[in-house]
């Protein structure tokens, strides 16, 4: 039965996430934007609180760790087999947190996207060792961004010690300096292309993992972005996620599937930031005497109100596309197309909304007295990482047109 409302059963989770966003994120937003690279220690306290929350309670689902496999609890299922599970829960929690501050949400202890990769491909033993830890994701290299199949970091198996030896350079590792684990993509054999790319778990304190620098950025300055050098970085062979065999048929596809679960989350971040922009702009417009009338045609109300509804309508489309993608993941429907559609729409829409809100609010919007200018800087990353706007469009287009990556470059 068609219903696109947010389920009541998630109200508690959303409420808790909203409290955290209001009380902790918003109050520290400006501080860590100004003081880039300083560790937001307030979050440690928060992490302790989250750890203390019982299962099913709220923020356990607010990060990326919970996506992927729904936990199969029969309580989540309705009679007709419809399921609203951890993907929707994680999405809703994250929207609230990013309404508070997307930079701080990205650097929440133990909520990095690396956990999504671990959850997607780890075996039981690995889940036992790595589950619940703070895991960052290291994919991008100086010469390989969107083109992640072209990575050059190598993993060589050392028969004598039973270890993999990693060599290469990784950039743009979100929370890389703060995480306990880094999930590193590396190739077992560059000649064999995508199929040889595997993910390896590297402990942050591994001496072969050398921090080169932390990036200075346009926004999300509360979240550190690390560049690493891997120099004869040795890890036990048990730290390879998934199968060590090079299987031309699957391999890379398996790694890429992680994105089907994480892209809706990044879309959710965009939706959270954009909602913050819309809400604050509406308050400021209201103070300026502009009221929104949803029944009036666009041409029959003041331009600012009309523009607001236009922004809100695109926001609604982005939000529903994202809910659709998460809902499909919860119901084990293939959602690669919908995940990329959601990410594309949310990334561009949120950026557009944030920048227009700044303009609507004039110097108040542009100045540091409000958070609008910060949100407009923060939001841009969401149209870039986890696949840029153009990569999402490529994925969508290839699926619709039935084209391979060789046929549509």
């Amino acid at each position, binding site marked *: *039965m*068609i*219903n*696109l*409302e*947010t*389920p*009541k*059963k998630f109200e508690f989770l959303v409420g808790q996430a909203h409290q955290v966003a209001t009380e902790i994120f918003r109050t520290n937003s400006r501080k860590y934007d100004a003081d880039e690279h300083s560790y937001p220690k307030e979050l440690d306290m928060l992490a302790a609180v989250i750890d203390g929350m019982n299962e099913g309670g709220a923020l356990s689902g607010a990060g990326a760790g919970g996506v992927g496999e729904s936990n199969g609890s029969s309580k989540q299922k*309705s009679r*007709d087999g*419809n*399921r*609203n599970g951890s993907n*929707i829960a994680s999405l809703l929690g994250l929207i609230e947190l990013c309404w508070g501050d997307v930079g701080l949400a990205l650097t929440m202890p133990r909520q990095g996207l690396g956990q999504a990769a671990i959850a997607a491909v780890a075996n039981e033993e690995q889940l036992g060792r790595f589950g619940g830890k703070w895991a960052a994701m290291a994919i991008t290299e100086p010469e390989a961004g969107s083109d992640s199949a072209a990575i050059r970091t190598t993993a060589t198996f050392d028969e004598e010690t039973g270890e993999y030896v990693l060599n290469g350079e990784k950039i743009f590792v979100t929370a890389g300096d703060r995480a306990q684990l880094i999930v590193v993509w590396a190739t077992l054999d560059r000649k064999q292309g995508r199929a040889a790319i595997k993910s390896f778990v590297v402990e942050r304190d591994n001496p072969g993992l050398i921090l080169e620098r932390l990036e200075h950025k346009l926004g999300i300055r509360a979240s550190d972005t690390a560049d690493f050098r891997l120099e004869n970085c040795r890890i036990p062979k048990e730290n390879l996620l998934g199968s060590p065999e090079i299987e031309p048929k699957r391999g890379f596809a398996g790694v890429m599937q992680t994105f089907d679960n994480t892209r809706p989350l990044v879309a959710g971040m965009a939706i959270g930031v954009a909602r913050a922009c819309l809400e604050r702009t509406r308050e400021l417009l209201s103070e300026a005497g502009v009221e929104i009338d*949803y*029944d*009036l*045609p*666009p*041409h*029959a109300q003041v331009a600012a109100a009309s523009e607001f*509804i*236009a922004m*809100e*309508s*695109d926001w*609604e*489309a*982005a939000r*529903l*596309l994202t*809910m*659709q993608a998460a*809902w499909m993941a919860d119901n084990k429907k293939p959602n690669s197309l*919908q995940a990329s*559609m959601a990410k*594309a*729409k949310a990334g561009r829409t949120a950026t557009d909304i944030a920048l227009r809100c700044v303009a609507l609010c004039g110097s108040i919007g542009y100045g540091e007295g409000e958070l609008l200018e910060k949100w407009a800087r923060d939001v841009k990353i969401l149209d870039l990482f986890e696949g840029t706007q*153009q990569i999402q*469009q*490529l994925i*969508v*287009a*290839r699926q*619709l*047109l*039935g*084209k391979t990556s060789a*046929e*549509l*470059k």
Partner: protein
Amino acid sequence: MAVGLRALNRLASNGLIDRFGLRDPAQRVLHGASKATVRTATRAGRTFAATQKLSKPARQPRTGRTDLFDLTPDDEQQLLRESVRDFALAKLRPAAQAADEACATPDELLGQANELGLTMVGVPEELGGAVAERSAVTTVLMAEALAQGDMGIAVACLAPAGVSTALSLWGDADQQATYLPEFVGENVPAAALAIVEPRPLFNPLSLETRARRVGGEFVLDGVKSLVPRAADAELFIVAAELEGEGPALFIVESGGAGLGIEPEPAMGIRAAATGTLIIEDVKLPAGALLGDPGCELMAECVQLGRLGWCAVAVGTGQAVLDYVIPYVNERKAFGEPISSRQAVAFTVANIAIELDGMRLATYRAASRVDQGAPFAREVSLARRLCSERGMAIGSDGVQLLGGHGYTKEHPVERWYRDLRAAGVMEGALVV
């Protein structure tokens, strides 16, 4: 410069057309144009009379809501959607171009469409309706599927359903007993809601069509624009400002004194045979007032109408997407399919993305109607998306076919014209 042009124009109008033997064709065109605007009386329709007496009006109950987010239509909805879509693609699409040119939908198609039960979905079961509970979602799904065949014909088919739904929602016992049996029978009357008025910046909550109480009756004056199937309609629901009481809806039977019709073909949805309804000093009985006057009911009517227009825009957008995909894959330029170029491929991707956003926003608004939740905001957002993004899809559809898209060899030029209606039209497709 302007003076010169004016002189040239005078010369052309006096001498040149005679010298080239063009006088006759020009006159024929002028004659045709004036003939097309000749006013006719509204159709002398059937007599609507109550066959049974109702003690109180019947209403479909709300569906209530499931707590879970769900995009799967129920079995009945899936069945209806599929059968309507099959019908639309098999029957409407092949007839679309001719209907567009003729500014009329063939009676045979209208009859077949009635067999789908379009006018019965919004009618309570005790009055012969087809669906137990209030289901704007079901109507939206059927309208979307129908428009996948052709938007203009879909509007022609759906216009009577808008009237039967309005009568079901707001009619009193007498009104329901008088009119609804005709809409659940074999011979469904042509009927339409008439909301739009011909002026820039039209706002449906601020009407210039006037109604006054005279004795126990009403007198109406005004002009209604782009009324679907105006010439054939046997029943109208007309929106008018009731003096001192606010906007109101009136049931107007065709054939009465003071009612006139002028053909009003437009840029698109031409198969819907749109016309102007002219209302001059039309006297209506006390029982003609539908529902309570005031902005509340009028706003609801407008919102439900916009939802219907959203639904047909979504269906038309889907038709565009389904048409351009094989075209850009087959059309070759520079030695390869044009879809191998990102500029083309990304346009297709964006059509799909925006279309899905339009669809989800429309479904959400419709499901809130069924649940009895407030839906003004959700309808407004869906309306804006379907109006603006829908129009962009129509434009992209033509663009992807290049010059070929501009010709009548392909339906994309029609969809370009049709999709603009989603932001202009009001009422008519109440769901």
